[in-house]
């Protein structure tokens, strides 16, 4: 069997549209003479393990799987690099919502109460906001109870269902606060999930970054450079590129950067989020 020279991307299939998206990219790249293919995983941990095993060239990583890959690589004496990200992956924040007419008026009021979050491995709807609250003096499971909404664990909160469920719990009175990504405050009002003005923003995290395209030091340099060049060259003005960019939720691909993951790194240290997994794969 001859080895083909496709540059292969790994991604997590959090929704059927993921196939449509990457198949679209495959054709877009093929039309520009670049052999590209993709493999899909059901969850990020399997993707990280496969990446380190050399099963594909570039990983479309969540912020959490970026840190997983980084920490796993270190144990093997290897290195990861974030080579690209979406414009929409930069400077996100999360917010903690409370009922406008409810008893919680300050972060310390959360003591003894219930905080609804998204999936347990969601950086934006669970880990980063809980870390933020901890730095504000209220610690999850010590000072308040965490009500998790585990929609698709392993998919790192890519599925918005967990955040929606958290807000529903807040509205229904099953929780006293809910953690969501900043943009979902507006989205959820617009889709009628809650009435404008009925929820208030208790606190907002500092900005952080989201997904990135991750490679290992062993990636074939020429093909990686070409992939990056094609990606960053995609223009929203181009009718062939625009539908792909819109489906993937960006206007423009930007350089990767690894400076936006410190809050998440602190969160997984504090909550011991990936230690059991890391112990298993390195053990």
């Amino acid at each position, binding site marked *: 069997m001859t080895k083909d020279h496709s540059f292969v991307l790994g991604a997590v299939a959090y929704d059927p549209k993921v196939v449509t998206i990457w198949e679209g990219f495959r054709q877009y790249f093929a039309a520009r003479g670049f052999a590209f293919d993709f493999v899909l995983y059901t969850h990020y941990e399997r993707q990280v393990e496969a990446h380190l095993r050399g099963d594909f060239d570039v990983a479309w990583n969540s912020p959490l799987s970026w840190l997983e890959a980084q920490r796993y690589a270190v144990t093997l004496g290897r290195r990861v690099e974030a080579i690209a990200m979406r414009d929409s992956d930069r400077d996100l924040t999360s917010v903690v919502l409370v009922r406008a007419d409810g008893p919680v008026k300050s972060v310390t009021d959360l003591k003894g109460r219930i905080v609804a979050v998204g999936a347990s491995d969601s950086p934006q709807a669970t880990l980063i906001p809980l870390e933020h609250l901890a730095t504000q003096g209220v610690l999850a499971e010590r000072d308040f109870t965490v009500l998790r909404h585990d929609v698709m664990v392993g998919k790192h909160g890519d599925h918005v269902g967990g955040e929606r469920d958290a807000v529903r719990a807040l509205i229904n009175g099953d929780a006293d606060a809910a953690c969501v990504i900043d943009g979902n405050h*507006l989205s959820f009002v617009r889709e009628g999930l809650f009435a404008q003005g009925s929820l208030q923003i208790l606190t907002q995290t500092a900005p952080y970054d989201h997904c990135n395209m991750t490679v290992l030091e062993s990636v074939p340099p020429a093909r990686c450079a070409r992939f990056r060049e094609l990606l960053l060259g995609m223009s929203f*003005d181009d009718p062939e590129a625009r539908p792909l960019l819109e489906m993937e939720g960006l206007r423009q691909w930007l350089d990767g950067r690894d400076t936006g993951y410190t809050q998440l790194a602190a969160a997984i240290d504090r909550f011991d989020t990936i230690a059991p997994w890391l112990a298993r794969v390195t053990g």
Partner: protein
Amino acid sequence: MEPLRERIIDVDLGDLGLDEGAHLLVQRALAQCDPAQVIRVRGTAHALAVDLRGWARAQGHRFEVSEGAWILSRSASYDGRWRNAVRASGTDAATSPGEHASSRWGVAARGALVEDSVPAWDFALGDKDSVWSDDAPRLYAMGAAAQWDPATAVPWSSELTHPAEVEDAVVQVMTYLIENETAALQVPARFLGRVHPHYREIVQVLALQCADEARHMEVFTRRALLQRDALGLSTAGGQRSLQTLYEEPDYAIASFLLSVLGEGSFLSLLWFLHAHGPDEVTRSVAKLSAQDEARHVAFSLSHLQRHCEREPAIRAKFARAVDARHQALQHTAGLNREVFDGLVLLAAGGWSPAALRRGHHAVIALQQTMDEGRRGRLARLGFSAGEAEALSALHTRNFM
């Protein structure tokens, strides 16, 4: 010297939140920006800082917090979506259709500005020459105004006094009419979805035509079942004749066979039933349907006349199609015996020899009227008298 534009445009949202529509004010300010400018947003709405950040990121605008104010710089791809957009019209006037309709216009309103990444739509009939009629707007307006309500337009409760066997004949004729109306609906319906909607008036005329046929099916069915529980006979020959129409893939040929020859002949039949029907209901449903059919025939004649003027060779295709249909049907029975006899009895109104003679004469005269009508319409399409006579004679004996 042109005055320097301010680099910062201030936008004050007051207490209006993005969750209450404030994004319209932000968008309006961004639209007025040039790439060197930024907007500075102020406002007191509770969630503004959160919503503005999320909204800007989703739109690709840069968002910064600077000295307590929110600064937005317009996305480089701000108007990218419309940079190569095209007008869905062949001409400058949004109201008049162009010679060719682009598959890239899709279902856009005529004259709308269409984004360049609209997927191509597969409308097979996208040339003005193959579909257009200048009469279409007028015929559409006429048709829309002439829609009648089957429940109230027909005197359903008027008395039926004719003999039972004449009623049997009416039921058989109605059964035949329903089957033909069904085909007369299916044929334009097949093409309706293939006409490029840039030719909106054509789509509208065909849609009304389908609606007309739907009513015809209804009223003939109701008439047939006034005094009977079961309908009459449907023959293989009749259906084969209609199937050749249904299977014709070419719009112009199908339109020619269906409307110029078929519905044209039916027009005579419906006026015959209006004149000779034994009861008020039969006469009424025949008349209402005939009025609709006249529009269908007029429309087809009009667009085919235009088509023939622009593509004279299509007449030869029409002639070949009539001939081919004749070949295909020559070993079938043609008009079923029951329908012919039914028409005679219906026109006779009874069993006396004198009445039957009168009915028979009327049906023979009907066939002559149909023939004259077909020849007249063929002449309007530019066929010579000799060609028209020959083609009319080859038309299906099933009438439609």
